[in-house]
């Protein structure tokens, strides 16, 4: 699905990604962990084209996406959420998800402008279905900026799913949530996000990684230091050292 070789991304003199090799198989759900500043979010940004890679190769389903613009890459079937929440604050909850259904074929003006056709009706129903599933249905017409944080995280998830991605990138989907809210989020991801697609999850809460992921990859200083099934990797000395050296994982 996604193959990355010797990927380097520099910011000035800092190498946020220092020759990373990384790959995800079709249908897999992969956990991405590592201390703060180890390059996890940068990897997401490079994969989605926000930052072009300094060097190295980046292939999505065999296609080279190293020099593509974000909208190109995203239209190949990639969707993501953001660690520091990014929603369209001045659109309603419904509009946030609805507008995200945009695909390249939609550029036909007919479908853009005319609301109420049958295809359009089906897609509005799909949006309402997603809002129902994520528990946002009763906030449907509120402006998204006024939602509390857990709802905003769920909105990001619904918006990403509305794009029907084949590769979904979740960046700390439970960041800043209470244990109960986290548990709800885990259930959501397990039930509606993971089935039928490839997922990469960045998370500090190791319990979540154990629950959700088939495989874990650990980054430190922009390199991969360990990889494998969650139980094995989380016992690995290098991983523990990388974490304990600067900070302890949240609940491992």
């Amino acid at each position, binding site marked *: 699905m996604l193959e990355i070789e010797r990927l380097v991304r520099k910011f000035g003199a800092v190498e946020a990604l220092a020759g990373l090799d990384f790959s995800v198989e079709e249908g897999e759900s992969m956990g991405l962990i590592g201390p703060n500043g180890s390059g996890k979010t940068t990897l997401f940004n490079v994969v989605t084209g926000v*930052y072009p890679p300094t060097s190295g190769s980046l292939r999505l389903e065999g296609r080279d996406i190293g020099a593509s613009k974000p909208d190109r890459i995203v239209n190949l079937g990639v969707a993501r959420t953001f660690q520091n929440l990014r929603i369209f604050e001045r659109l309603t909850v419904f509009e946030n998800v609805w507008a995200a259904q945009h695909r390249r074929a939609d550029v036909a003006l007919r479908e853009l402008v005319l609301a109420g056709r049958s295809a359009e009706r089906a897609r509005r129903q799909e949006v309402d279905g997603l809002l129902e599933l994520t528990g946002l249905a009763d906030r449907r017409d509120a402006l998204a900026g006024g939602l509390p944080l857990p709802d905003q995280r769920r909105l990001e998830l619904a918006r990403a799913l509305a794009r029907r991605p084949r590769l979904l990138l979740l960046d700390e989907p439970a960041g800043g949530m209470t244990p109960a809210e986290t548990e709800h989020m885990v259930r959501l991801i397990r039930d509606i996000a993971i089935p039928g697609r490839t997922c990469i999850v960045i998370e500090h809460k190791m319990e979540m990684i154990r629950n959700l992921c088939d495989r874990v990859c650990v980054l430190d200083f922009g390199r991969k230091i360990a990889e494998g099934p969650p139980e094995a990797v989380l016992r690995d000395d290098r991983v523990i050292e990388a974490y304990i050296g600067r900070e302890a994982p949240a609940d491992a």
Partner: protein
Amino acid sequence: MVDFVQNCFDGVMLGSSYALLAIGFTLIFGVMRRLNLSYGPSIMLGAFVGTLVFLEFRAGGLAVAAATVLGAVLVGIYVERLCFWAIRQGAAVASMVSSFAIWMQLEEIVTIAFPDRTYPFPPLTRAQPMDFGPFFFKVENLVMFGCAVALTLGLHLLLYRTRFGLRLRAVAESPDAARYMGINIAAVTFLAFACASAIGGVAGYLIVAQDGQITPLFGLWATFKGLIAMMLGGMGSIPGAILGGLLLGIVEAQSIWYLGTEFRDLCAYALLFLFLVFRPGGLFGHALAERERLALRRV
């Protein structure tokens, strides 16, 4: 060839007034990353204060200059409070629009208070133009050029040799980091704004004294010429302001000579447009523009 060279000299002379205007402009932009479009009108208001002092009290050149600078600084403070301090940080575009709105206000105030539109202003010198072989220069222009260079040097010393300059540069570099270092950003930007207004007052005095008269149109002229010169040099770059001013002056002088007066402004705006599209960072500010582009993309 003689024509071309004389045009270049004329352009440099013309350009030194643009450079003078651009210095204050770029100081504000460099520190705040915002554009003060009512910079010209506040200088214009200052010059009208100078004119008032001249007409009412028959004051000499120095008093008129002081009144002009004082007026420009006071109006500058009004603009700073309303359009910059009161608008939250980061809303650069809102500040720009707001300063344009205040521009309308300032212009109307002047047209109401000074209904005759054109007022006399005491000239700087009555010296004759000087000849050097086939070329000639006006004394006022030489004074202006000298002032532009002196102001640049002074500003350079202020920025790189004083504590206040260090604070200014820290705020310009990263307001957040500056705040954690205990720098009072509001105070620093306020002082920078006042400095820029004072520089604008000096520039305004020299330019208006050379013309020997002042009209409300001076505000628009000063903002646009200063803005173009600053943009050409690179927003936020002080040596850029000088070079941008000179470049603008030379291009204008050549276009007046070869195309006619009516093409002067057209060429100036075309030059600005081309720079914006192909080199938005100007001659000197390229790295800066690049950094801002990246900051916009920060996720």
